């Protein structure tokens, strides 16, 4: 089994959730059956992703030929140091979200819909993983659609809690579809230029053509805009706050930690592997357009986050700002910058996933969505609030947390390039993050709990979240500390390896 998985694991990790989604959708509405099956599938997928990562580390590059057809005629999966860790990241976040879903979703989705709901969740996991592992440009689009269409449905399911989820899902659907269309137009132009859909093949042909003609330039533009919509690049982020604020709690945590990350991975892939920054038009777009939008997004989205009253919208705008950090790392166009960006991608997935899990637990117990309602949470939900605090520190970038490591890496890369203004922007936006996260913690720690939470003898009624919510939440909080303390050992290696694969020449 292990040796079979080391050969076929990459395909197995995609196919298993796809097929099991079809099964889960048909399961009878019996108590926790659909949840249990979906969670077991996610655990199996995560274990497979781990084996695949091991194999990739040993082998360097894994190529799996779907249907036995060698590329470029068939579709191949291609794993290297860039996408294998992201595959595991998505699978792991899928497991954590599904474990958390037992209490959370069961308060939000009625029994008869849970089968299809968990099926959609499995499709979303499989779609995101499929986007990441494939080595074929059109196959990216297919799995982008799998993850998007199930994602729109999952967001809309938040309507049981707040009807605004429906308009949020509709916005997400329209903008997401425009993004996917732009992407596929770009792939079409690339096909016209290169005559192949295999990404390695495209890279070789484009390098041969020295960047190619205007067709390749237009293809690059369309792909960047399409992926920009998917990864919520400022100002294409307008779908994101609504989608994150109103979808079911578990869905928000999963999408916030993986969906934009998978699209960002594709941006790495297209900017550095398929295209190359040594082509003049790629360098111009990345240095001026992407960097410019990244910095603008960091500042504006951080400020917008500060002025939100809804806790989840605050975190959603913060996500847009954090995407700005990752894009800035791309724009620096060096191994160090890209490594910082990659590290921040992983850290942010852990941190933002955890923060949304914590907010979900607060909603689950008290229906809290507004920052002003978070009063006294440190006394009523001490463990959740403690985990929230740790993760918030990490988001701000306090030393000894995950956020600190990656922000320092990004700042060093920017300084190395002489972009002192970028270092300043990173510091200023971190200070703004201190204010908007600090505001929540001030309320949670220093405001007294509302009268409803006081017992008759004057003591505070403790209402901690259920254990299945606490396990993933505390796990992610500890993870962010571990990265902060020991992360320079493992994760920095992983991100530097990834960056070296993306920029084999060592950068400009």
């Amino acid at each position: 089994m292990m040796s079979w998985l080391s050969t076929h694991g990459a395909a197995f990790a995609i196919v298993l959730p796809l097929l099991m989604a079809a099964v889960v959708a048909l399961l009878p509405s019996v108590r926790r059956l659909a949840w249990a099956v979906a969670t077991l599938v996610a655990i199996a997928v995560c274990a497979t992703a781990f084996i695949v990562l091991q194999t990739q580390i040993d082998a360097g590059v894994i190529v799996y030929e779907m249907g036995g057809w060698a590329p470029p005629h068939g579709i191949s999966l291609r794993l290297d140091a860039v996408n294998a860790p992201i595959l595991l990241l998505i699978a792991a976040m899928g497991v954590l979200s599904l474990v958390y879903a037992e209490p959370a979703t069961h308060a939000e989705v009625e029994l008869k819909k849970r089968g299809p709901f968990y099926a959609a969740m499995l499709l979303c996991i499989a779609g995101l993983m499929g986007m990441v592992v494939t080595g074929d440009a059109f196959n990216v689009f297919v799995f982008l659609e799998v993850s998007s269409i199930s994602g729109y449905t999952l967001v809309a399911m938040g309507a049981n809690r707040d009807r605004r989820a429906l308009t949020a899902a509709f916005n997400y659907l329209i903008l997401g579809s425009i993004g996917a269309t732009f992407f596929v137009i770009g792939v079409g132009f690339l096909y016209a230029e290169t005559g192949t859909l295999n990404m390695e093949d495209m890279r070789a042909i484009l390098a041969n053509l020295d960047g190619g003609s205007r067709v390749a330039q237009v293809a690059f533009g369309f792909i960047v805009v399409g992926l920009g919509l998917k990864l919520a690049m400022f100002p294409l982020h307008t779908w994101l706050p609504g989608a994150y604020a109103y979808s079911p709690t578990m869905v928000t945590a999963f999408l916030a930690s993986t969906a934009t990350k998978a699209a960002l991975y594709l941006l790495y892939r297209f900017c550095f592997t398929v295209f190359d920054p040594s082509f003049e038009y790629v360098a111009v777009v990345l240095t001026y357009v992407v960097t410019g939008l990244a910095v603008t997004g960091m500042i504006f989205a951080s400020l917008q986050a500060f002025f939100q009253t809804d806790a989840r919208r605050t975190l959603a705008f913060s996500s847009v700002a954090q995407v700005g950090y990752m894009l800035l790392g791309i724009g620096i166009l060096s191994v160090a910058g890209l490594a910082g960006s990659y590290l921040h991608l992983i850290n942010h997935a852990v941190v933002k996933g955890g923060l949304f899990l914590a907010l979900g637990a607060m909603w689950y117990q008290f229906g809290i969505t507004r920052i002003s309602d978070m009063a006294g949470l440190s006394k009523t939900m001490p463990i959740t609030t403690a985990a929230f605090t740790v993760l918030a520190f990490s988001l701000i970038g306090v030393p000894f947390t995950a956020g600190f490591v990656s922000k320092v890496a990004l700042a060093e890369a920017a300084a190395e390039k002489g972009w002192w203004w970028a270092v300043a922007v990173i510091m200023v936006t971190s200070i703004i993050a201190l204010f908007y996260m600090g505001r929540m913690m001030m309320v949670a720690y220093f405001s007294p709990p509302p009268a409803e939470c006081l017992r008759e003898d004057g003591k505070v009624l403790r209402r901690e979240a259920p254990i299945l919510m606490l396990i993933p939440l505390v796990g992610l909080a500890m993870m962010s500390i571990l990265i902060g303390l020991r992360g320079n050992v493992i994760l920095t290696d992983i991100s530097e390896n990834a960056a070296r694969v993306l920029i084999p020449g060592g950068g400009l």
Partner: protein
Amino acid sequence: MTPDTPIRDPHVILRVIAKFLIPLIALFAFYVQFHGDYGPGGGFQAGVILAVSVILYALIFGLDEAKRAFPPALIRVGMSLGVLLYGGTGVVAWMMGGEFLNYSVLAHDAIHGQHWGILVIELGVLTTVTSVMLAIFYAFGSRQPEISDEDW
């Protein structure tokens, strides 16, 4: 099946013609399905055409009649079954020692394996596409109690 007042039925010509056409449309769907190896066609197109034959039936004889012929529970199974048929072909290829969806290992020689594989996966596509098209029609159609004549 029969309308309440058959004599004053304003759509008698529509009903008669439709009864004649619907089997032909369904038959054409299967032609498209199985002729896809030789000419334009395949599971997607055939599935859509098969769904259209049922939708036409629903439009003329009413949604409830169509639901008796193709119950929503069956549609739900069909949606999943098609994906399982398609993916199952790949899984069988795995068990026979090939890559996922490598049809060549399915039979004694590669060409026959390819033919078998394509036949089954096209059937899977047909099942899913037909079911989902009907599911979408049922979902929207069920929300409107009855389509009144003025609306057409």
